[in-house]
């Protein structure tokens, strides 16, 4: 087995965030939490550690017995299964081996158990009969309660990662990524997810190389394995040999040099060949990322996602807590604008830490403005914090997930109420914030001419707009290739929104992933967008692209694009018109 384990393996996935890193693997369980830590046990404490394991097993056994005793006669069958589980807990392949591993390797019980279970899984996976293989694999789940008992009420968590590692996971939910101490993560590799999945976005935001959608990388990689991750090419190597390492170190240097060249141009304004100045702004999720926007030459914050303060915590954040965070961002960016988007999740679920699957279709469910209008108190707390922060700089407020006209009226009414209450209290605030709405649901894109009468600006969230318009789950590997920003339906929709905005004199901005791809800039400028907002690290290369565009030509190109029937056709027109601009910078 050992020679098999150390053979160099190259895997191809989706390069979701560019860059190259070399480091040790850190495996996150499929549940995302309870990462098992390994630590050495001193010889004199081995007996104590073994006892800790015995007690954990006994407790698991007692709990099972209690279940058996309480089970109704009708569930006798079920009770039999539980009895089998009780027997399995004491099975020498599980129990004996774990005790032996603690003793022989001098490691903690959790690690020993995890190792034994993982060895068993390997053993079972080799069984030829699929049915038996799966049934057999089930037995290892009896170890779950033992593990829980060992780890106590506060299981080891991704947030406890204490060294620089490459995170290996099936997938990471927003709640999990929010707990990771990101400065400790060198790279991401995952089984699931694609370019626009949450992990992909986070990785790009923080400029951490990521290769996603690798199918079964969590099975192939063991903790501490040496890995190379090349997010630029969407490639990773397990157990690289020396030649491979040398090759990737060279590539990493070339990448850094190229990046530095582009970065240097980041701080000059983005002006097209015909003299149109385009605002190139940054999207942020954490207040700390403001620094990154400034470093990359951003002209402001085009999208400040505020979900972060609501994730993985027992209570909703208080008004003063939110205010402090917002003010930090607003003050640092002043006088440049900060666009604060109100809560765009189902806050109840975030707070209660319920799995995201409780709603069958969360993307179509109770989230964004729908949730906020229903939970007026949560919403009002946030709006008050935003209005107070507005007194310290240039704030724009942005409502997400609007799908009907009434929602925007209602949101504005609540904004008035919040302002009135602040006024009554004599608080320091600024009511003169620009009000905007996200265009991400097709219904409001279609109704853009009507909606424009009620707001100061539109911000087009291309990620969701594309997802909803093309009916593509961007996190689903099987269909993610159909997620095409240049689909003619999307181009037409963007034009409709842009035309409605211009006719009504309201701003039209783009804050989706689409804006961060330099090759899209000629299209977006041709459509009349005046502001692009993106992950901070994309700002320099998009600015560079803007400088080589002539908006007159871009508009003509759009006329040609609108005649195309497919995304492929659109790409061809784009290629013909700006092919010389699209070469890898």
């Amino acid at each position: 087995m050992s020679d098999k384990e150390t053979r160099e393996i190259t895997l191809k996935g989706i390069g979701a965030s560019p860059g190259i890193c070399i480091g040790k693997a850190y495996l996150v369980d499929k549940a995302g939490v309870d990462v098992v830590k390994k630590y050495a046990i001193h010889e004199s404490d081995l007996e104590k550690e073994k006892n800790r394991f015995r007690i954990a097993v006994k407790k698991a056994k007692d709990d099972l017995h209690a279940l058996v005793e309480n089970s109704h006669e009708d569930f006798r069958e079920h009770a039999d299964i539980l009895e089998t589980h009780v027997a399995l807990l004491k099975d020498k392949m599980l129990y004996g081996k774990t005790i032996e591993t603690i003793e022989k390797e001098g490691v903690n019980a959790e690690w020993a158990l995890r190792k034994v279970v993982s060895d068993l899984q390997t053993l079972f996976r080799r069984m030829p009969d699929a049915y038996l293989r799966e049934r057999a694999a089930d037995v290892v789940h009896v170890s779950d309660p033992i593990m829980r008992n060992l780890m106590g009420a506060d299981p080891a968590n991704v947030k406890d990662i204490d060294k620089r590692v490459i995170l290996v996971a099936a997938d990471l939910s927003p709640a999990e990524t929010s707990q990771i101490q990101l400065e400790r993560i060198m790279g991401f590799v995952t089984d699931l997810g694609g370019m626009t999945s949450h992990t992909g976005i986070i990785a790009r935001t923080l400029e951490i190389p990521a290769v996603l959608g690798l199918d079964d990388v969590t099975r192939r990689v063991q903790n501490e394995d040496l890995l190379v991750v090349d997010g630029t090419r969407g490639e990773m190597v397990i157990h690289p040999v020396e030649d491979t390492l040398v090759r990737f170190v060279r590539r990493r240097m070339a990448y850094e040099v190229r990046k530095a060249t582009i970065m240097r141009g980041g701080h000059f304004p983005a002006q097209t060949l015909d003299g149109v100045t385009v605002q190139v702004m940054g999207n942020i999720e954490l207040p700390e990322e403001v620094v990154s926007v400034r470093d990359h030459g951003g002209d402001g914050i085009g999208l400040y996602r505020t979900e972060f303060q609501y994730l993985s915590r027992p209570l909703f954040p208080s008004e003063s807590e939110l205010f402090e965070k917002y003010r930090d961002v607003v003050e640092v960016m002043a006088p440049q604008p900060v666009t604060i988007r109100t809560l765009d999740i189902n806050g109840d679920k975030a707070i209660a830490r319920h799995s995201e699957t409780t709603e069958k279709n969360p993307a179509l469910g109770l989230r964004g403005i729908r949730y906020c209008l229903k939970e007026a108190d949560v919403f009002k707390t946030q709006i008050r914090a935003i209005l107070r922060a507005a007194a310290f700089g240039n704030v724009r407020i942005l409502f997400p997930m609007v799908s009907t006209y009434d929602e925007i009226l209602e949101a504005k009414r609540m904004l008035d109420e919040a302002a009135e209450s602040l006024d009554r209290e004599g608080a320091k605030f600024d009511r003169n914030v620009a009000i905007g709405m996200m265009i991400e649901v097709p219904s409001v894109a279609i109704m853009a001419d009507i909606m424009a009468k009620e707001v100061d600006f539109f911000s087009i969230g291309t990620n969701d707009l594309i997802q909803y318009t093309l009916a593509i789950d961007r996190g689903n590997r099987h269909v993610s290739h159909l997620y095409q920003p240049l689909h003619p339906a999307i181009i037409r929709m963007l034009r409709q929104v842009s035309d409605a905005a211009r006719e009504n004199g309201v701003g039209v901005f783009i804050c989706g992933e689409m804006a961060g791809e330099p090759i899209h800039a000629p299209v977006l400028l041709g459509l009349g967008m005046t502001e692009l907002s993106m992950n901070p690290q994309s700002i320099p290369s998009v600015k560079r692209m803007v400088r080589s565009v002539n908006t007159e030509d871009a508009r003509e190109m759009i006329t040609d694009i609108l005649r195309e029937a497919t995304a492929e056709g659109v790409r061809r027109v784009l290629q013909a018109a700006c092919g010389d601009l699209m070469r890898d910078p």
Partner: protein
Amino acid sequence: MKETSKHVVITNELGLHARAAAKMADIAREAESTVWAIKGDHAVDAGSIIDLLTLGCSEGSPLTIRIDSQSDLNILNRIALLIEDGFGE
């Protein structure tokens, strides 16, 4: 010298699954010495459910049960009976 192994065939539909293996292991653990379950050239400890499961016995699989000590003859017979009886299913 009396025979120290018996050849049996798994007759129950689901093969040697966890609950069946648990019954077998229960008996095997009463033995003084190790009781072996052998399929092909793969021999495992019949006292371990997990070990038994790794044999991957489906319906119709031939299985050899072997004891190391004559004093466990009774155990051998009970296990053979259990298997022939389809684990009472």
